[in-house]
């Protein structure tokens, strides 16, 4: 079994049972729609809250599909097949996470762009926010994948995933939302925050596969 095959299988699975990118994107749009209804329609409030609320809703959208990433593999024996394939489990982790990210999460920055404009951000600020979201999503997805691998096969795994991923997602939340906020008020710190988002995301993308592989290995013994 090659890594490419795992990547394609993951992407096809996302379309087969979960509607591909539709579910996270629709969830993201639905949660953004609730925001003005909850906090009021004052343009100043919405513009100020916009970047943060959009990042927060994006995190929820990433969390939404997390449970099935490894949960089903542990139950139906696919994980054993991966273990016997001779591929390092960290490579399996990279292929799986990238497969599901590229199949399901690619619309999130676009929704973020539209949401930013709808919340009254200038187009440049919404664009900066979308860019920062695009940079943050791989890191977020790998982080959530650690939580998913650690709680695969657990009772009420989804709840545990959210609880252990939320505090670890703080740096990405802070830098992504700050990039959007700084761009909104025309502050030069926007690009610095974008770069910090990239740095944290790269750090998580590079190191998470090892944590995921350790978690999967514990489930194979």
């Amino acid at each position, binding site marked *: 079994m090659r890594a490419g095959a795992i990547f394609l299988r993951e992407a096809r699975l996302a379309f087969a049972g979960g509607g591909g990118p539709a579910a996270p994107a629709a969830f993201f749009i639905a949660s953004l729609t609730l925001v003005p209804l909850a906090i009021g329609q004052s343009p100043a409030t919405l513009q100020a809250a916009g970047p943060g609320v959009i990042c927060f809703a994006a995190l929820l959208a990433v969390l939404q599909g997390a449970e099935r990433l490894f949960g089903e593999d542990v139950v139906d024996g696919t994980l054993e097949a991966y273990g016997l394939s001779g591929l390092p489990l960290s490579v399996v982790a990279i292929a799986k996470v990238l497969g599901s990210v590229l199949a399901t999460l690619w619309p999130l920055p676009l929704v973020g762009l539209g949401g930013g404009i709808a919340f009254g951000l200038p187009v440049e600020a919404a664009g900066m926010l979308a860019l920062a979201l695009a940079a943050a999503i791989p890191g977020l997805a790998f982080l959530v994948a650690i939580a998913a691998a650690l709680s695969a096969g657990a009772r009420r795994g989804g709840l545990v995933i959210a609880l252990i991923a939320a505090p670890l997602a703080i740096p990405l939340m802070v830098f992504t939302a700050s990039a959007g906020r700084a761009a909104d008020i025309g502050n030069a710190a926007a690009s610095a925050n974008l770069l910090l988002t990239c740095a944290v995301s790269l750090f998580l993308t590079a190191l998470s596969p090892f944590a995921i592989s*350790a978690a999967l290995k514990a489930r194979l013994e």
Partner: protein
Amino acid sequence: MRPSGACPPDQGRLTGANIMFSYLANPQRFEKFSRIAIPVCGWLALALIAAGLWYGLFSSPVDRFQGDTIRIMYVHVPSAWLALALYFAMGGASFVYFIWRHNLADTAAASIAPIGAVFAGLCLITGAIWGRPTWGAWWVWDARLTSMLIQFLLFLGYIALRAAIEDERLAARSAAILAMVGLVNLPIVRFSVEWWDGILHQGATVFRADGPQIHGSQLLPLALMAAGFTLMAGWMVLYRMRSAIMARKAANLQRLREARA
């Protein structure tokens, strides 16, 4: 990563904390050690906290700016220190368990988690009680407060993960990985929270390069309470560890008896 079962508990290299866990891995040695260490920690903690409370509540003067609310600090600061120290201890024990598979290290990490959560919670509650009269607000979103809240959540996540996985060995391995991931991420989380925030909370006051910026009459009860709280935490951790080991022994005996019957 080595293949499963390649490393029996006593074969690891003897470095750092591993020496301690290697020595105590023998249940009889741990039993002997804990039989002395538990009462020593417990009574010393009681004596230090009693002295600290007396100095803190009666013998130390009222603060010029904060009035009597200063006395909350003698509980608040040791709790904050222990929440952080216990998180590092939990991460260290998890590391030793993950690499050398010492079951005792896992027992230690599992015993530390709820105690750390309680100290983090105590720090937050005492902080809120102090903040209301001093800052005029129960809670502000300041870097130090938020960091402590995150610390509390990290402990809760660890406890929830352990509780959610039924298989004991798998729960231990998963929790150890989570504790190590948390430890690696903690500096980034702290940095990002500091970046995000303006400063309201008082900065470092006691451990500074230019010496403590606190009056002696306040430093003495603070030091007594910090030492007392630390010993109390040690007492609780050891007590919980010994209880966990005994519970495991009892379960094994029960299984043996059922197998015979």
